[in-house]
């Protein structure tokens, strides 16, 4: 129990003193994961809507593929991106390896399937409910998809939260393509890995508690927003 008490104190100490290194690491974590989730929504929402409400050849195999990709191992994604972004790789001239941009890319690869698959499920369920209504209105497929997305917007926040959770928690991909460089590509999870390897287990656990608190805060904020928006919508 000694370790856990010390971890709590380490976490409180870092937060209360507004430790500048910690603030930078937390900021970069939020920036990288936030950008990755935004990018994933940009791709995942339309893809999910098409998969959920569309009727086109290859839809089912693609749906299986997207669902399976939810379980992509981060370390494999990191390694693949390393080989692509390395100076010796095909995208080497871009000079993206060991930058936050590479980390955003890696997390977007991990999060997009989650957003797309959950969106597809939400849209497909709603489209069952709306089938008769759509039939009487004679709406185009695209207009139907847009309606389904709008009416499913509260449920879609769950897709975003699931994606954000994955992005904030993964370490395997960002440590390879980011390199865990101090003040440049060090985020919460890679900092925890580093402190663990230094044997500073209490500090590592303390950072873990801060990460958990962040995750909790983000979830609470989005759920609160959702509840307020729903109340207003139901007016």
């Amino acid at each position, binding site marked *: 129990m000694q370790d856990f008490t010390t971890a709590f104190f380490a976490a409180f100490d870092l937060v209360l003193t507004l430790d500048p290194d910690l603030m930078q690491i937390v900021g970069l974590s939020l920036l990288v994961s936030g950008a990755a989730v935004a990018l994933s929504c940009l791709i995942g929402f339309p893809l999910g809507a098409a998969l959920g409400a569309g009727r086109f050849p290859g839809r089912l195999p693609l749906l299986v593929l997207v669902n399976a990709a939810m379980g992509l191992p981060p370390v494999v994604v990191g390694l693949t991106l390393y080989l692509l972004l390395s100076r010796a790789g095909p995208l080497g001239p871009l000079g993206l390896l060991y930058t936050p941009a590479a980390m955003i890319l890696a997390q977007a690869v991990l999060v997009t399937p989650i957003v797309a698959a959950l969106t597809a499920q939400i849209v497909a369920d709603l489209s069952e409910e709306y089938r008769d209504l759509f039939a009487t209105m004679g709406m185009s497929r695209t207009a139907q998809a847009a309606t389904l997305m709008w009416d499913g917007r509260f449920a879609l926040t769950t897709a975003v939260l699931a994606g954000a959770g994955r992005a904030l928690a993964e370490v395997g991909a960002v440590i390879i393509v980011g390199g865990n460089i*101090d003040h440049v590509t060090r985020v919460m999870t890679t900092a925890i890995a580093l402190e663990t390897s230094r044997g500073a*287990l209490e500090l590592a656990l303390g950072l873990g508690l801060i990460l958990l608190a962040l995750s909790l805060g983000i979830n609470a904020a989005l759920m609160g927003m959702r509840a307020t928006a729903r109340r207003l919508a139901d007016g």
Partner: protein
Amino acid sequence: MIRLASLFVLLTLPAVAQDHILIQSTTSTQNSGLYDHLLPVFEAETGIETRVVAVGTGQAIRNATNCDGDVLLVHAHAAEDAFVAAGYGLPRRDVMYNDFILIGPDVILADSPADALTLLARAQGPFLSRGDDSGTHRRETELWRAAGIDPTTSSGTWYRETGSGMGATLNITAAMDAYTLTDRATWLTFANSADLIIAYEGHADLNNQYGVIAVSPDHCPSVNATGARIFVDWITGPQGQATIAAYRMNGAPLFTPNATE
């Protein structure tokens, strides 16, 4: 808006990549805190920002071979010479040394590291190996060879390969009350040492030499050759060497500088 602006700045970072150098290095030098002590001095004197990627020596050499770094600072002399001989790097320079030590629950009375390992094998360890082609793992393999023992035939029994970094392996060693080979700097700065002590130390076969190599601009046109040259000259020069000598933990030096002109 601020968020968008800072994102823009971050995304354009690679475009202004020439005012920093990227050092591919080992976990032992990072975990020991040496870089936190050394690099701010270098940055203040030269104005060149340094970025350290700390991985095992094998991976560091591989990354540098792929041109993903400007400077290599590792501890596997033979592999470093091979890197230079293959045309990937400029001539290698000695930087500093410390020594490897055997860590475990009890002292091992032996005449040499090979003797100590023979005794460990007879007692069935347990011994934890890095198993990750790092500089420390390479030295461990050499010591087993000198003892005439192939421990990998016992892999999974008393000989366990963690496949992890030095810190992770030390955490497992502490939890299992086992033996392992580590370097003195990592050991002295490791916070989770539990009941482990130095089981064997002090032999010429345990010398741990670090070398520095600038990645060759002929092999990798993208490298920051000027920055790399300044760094190599600095760390092997009087200022860098004095800064390394001044890094101590509880009064004991962690690395001994030994660059030659």
